[in-house]
């Protein structure tokens, strides 16, 4: 391949200000062979139970694995490699994905039909999953996308690229859950476009990986398109989680909501940079940003940055950003009810992210996520879901 070299972004770039680029620069991008049968057997034994009502697609290191998948309709796998690299710092990891992906998983939902799918992207070493989603007029897709480290102690790299065209009057409900190992590096780039009266509701849980960077580029191109973006990030140890969401409103009467809840413990760093741009034609647009972080640990760091760029009149735009610690009055209230300090803290941390996690689409997924969080939020997770 005679492709041009890809230069990684730098922290001088405003959209990458909070990213851990030093760690990302050490990531090794290389082609990944298809998994062996023995590996697949091991992976199959450790995958979560299939969610009722959902078909399942499994990609291992970006390779589609038919024998671990249950979905029969609504998707196709093509081996084409997308060579249309795009310019700009926000596209650099997407471009790397384009170079290293092992085909593209295409999900197309025909007009006025509904589909529920779970896509599990398993990583054993380095993985470059690619999802290309198209919802036709009035279609509905409930998609759960999970990133799964095959081994907790392996230094895995995931660099996912997800593109979605949400057609007119279509509805995409996207839940994204990170089940990364302790040494994992997780990168993703999402490019989403919403048509007229299209709706997109995202719920994302970022946790587990040593370093993560999530880049989302969303455009409301159709009138009255609507977006809800709910993200919870849990950092511990020396983890570094950074999310950047850029929403562009180009059509009138569009709406978007960003809700971020981040908890930074120990020496971890959690960041959310939410940028909303309202173009001159986007008259009557409404936006709301609620970005909150909780610091639990003297050396933890949290950055929340709401940004609004408004180029028209007659818009409603509100934003709020806070970084704080556990409320000592609330903590004492729980202690005064006999609840031990560690449990009380865990309950309050769970409560802090609960309004995001409550948006998860199925009770079974709730239970699986709670179990995954049990180590970091002991006791509270499973009980809070009951």
């Amino acid at each position, binding site marked *: 391949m005679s492709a041009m070299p890809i230069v990684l972004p730098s922290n001088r770039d405003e959209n990458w200000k909070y990213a851990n680029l030093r760690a990302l620069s050490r990531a090794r991008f290389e082609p990944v062979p298809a998994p062996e049968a023995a590996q697949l057997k091991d992976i199959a034994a450790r995958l979560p139970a299939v969610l009722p009502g959902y078909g399942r697609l499994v990609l291992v290191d970006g390779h589609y694995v038919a024998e671990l998948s249950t979905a029969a309709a609504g998707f196709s796998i093509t081996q084409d490699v997308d060579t249309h690299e795009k310019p700009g710092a926000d596209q650099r990891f997407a471009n790397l994905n384009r170079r290293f992906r092992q085909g593209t998983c295409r999900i197309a939902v025909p007009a006025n039909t509904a589909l529920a799918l779970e896509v599990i992207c398993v990583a054993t070493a380095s993985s470059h999953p690619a999802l290309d989603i198209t919802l036709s007029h009035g279609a509905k897709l409930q998609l759960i996308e999970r990133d799964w480290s095959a081994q907790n102690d392996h230094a895995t790299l995931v660099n996912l690229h997800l593109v979605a065209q949400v057609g007119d009057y279509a509805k995409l409900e996207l839940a994204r859950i990170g089940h990364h190992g302790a040494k994992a590096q997780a990168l993703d780039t999402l490019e989403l476009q919403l048509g007229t009266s299209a709706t997109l509701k995202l719920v994302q849980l970022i946790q587990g990986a040593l370093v993560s960077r999530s880049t989302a580029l969303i455009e409301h191109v159709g009138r009255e398109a609507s977006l809800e973006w709910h993200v919870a990030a849990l950092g511990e140890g020396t983890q570094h989680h950074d999310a950047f969401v850029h929403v562009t409103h180009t059509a009138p009467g569009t709406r978007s909501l960003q809700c971020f809840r981040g908890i930074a413990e120990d020496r971890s760093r959690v960041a959310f940079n939410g940028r909303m741009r309202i173009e001159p034609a986007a008259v009557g647009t409404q936006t709301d940003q609620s970005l909150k972080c909780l610091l639990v640990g003297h050396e933890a760091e949290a950055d929340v940055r709401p940004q609004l760029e408004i180029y028209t009149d007659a818009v409603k735009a509100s934003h709020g950003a806070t970084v704080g610690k556990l*409320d*000592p*009055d*609330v903590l*004492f*209230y*729980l*202690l*005064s*009810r*006999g*609840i*031990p*300090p560690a*449990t*009380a803290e865990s*309950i*309050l941390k*769970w*409560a*802090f992210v*609960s*309004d995001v996690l409550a948006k998860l689409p199925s009770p079974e997924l709730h239970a699986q996520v709670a179990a995954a969080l049990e180590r970091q939020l002991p006791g509270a997770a499973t*009980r*809070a879901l*009951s």
Partner: protein
Amino acid sequence: MLIIKDLHARVGDRKVLDGLNLEVPAGQVHAIMGPNGSGKSTLAYTLAGRPGYELISGSVSYQGRDLLTLAPEARAQAGLFLGFQYPVEIPGVNNVYLLKAALNAARKHRGEAEVDAFEFLTLVREKMKVMQMDETFLSRGVNEGFSGGEKKRNEILQLLVLEPSLALLDETDSGLDIDALKVVAHGVNTLRSPNRAIVLVTHYQRLLDHIQPDRVHVLARGRIIRSDGPELARELEARGYDWVLNEAA
């Protein structure tokens, strides 16, 4: 049940309790009244172990144990319950979860197994009837969006579920209308027992019309300056605090 001897305590730089003595035997209800800023809430918080309420000297014996050496949660597990004047809101933690977690913490302390789910719900529903609370309160965040009266009912609901040995109720009557006051008082009265002591911190006689105290104490300038029977509350209601402050001076 509770013996406080020469208790001195401060909040920040301000000394609030200044040689307080009080004895509350099991089976009795005591009311503590006093002017604003006299140290009533400080006493309640100091006994419950709230951070920032610092002991200077003195002792507090609860069921023969040194209460002040225990962590706040250990005091609660040992059977002390503080009913807050201003109960906090905890969005994201539902009422039923808090009740169950608190009950199980107490049971664990007593060496008992966690409460069975069916048994727990039966118990909570029974207590909610006493407090005339709708079951929808169970699934709501703790005190989240509750009115002042609903918060106080919720405090007493917790009290009824946890059945502590010693209840300190800090101005439980504040913010209650007449009907809610009767419900709250009824809830407290159902808990009266020979093995339990109740301390009511209040400004007003009206609560004591519904919960008959065995003793009434006047707390002023950080110490108990007068103790008497229930008639003292009526006299305070009629005459105010000046006369008793002057007598103590």
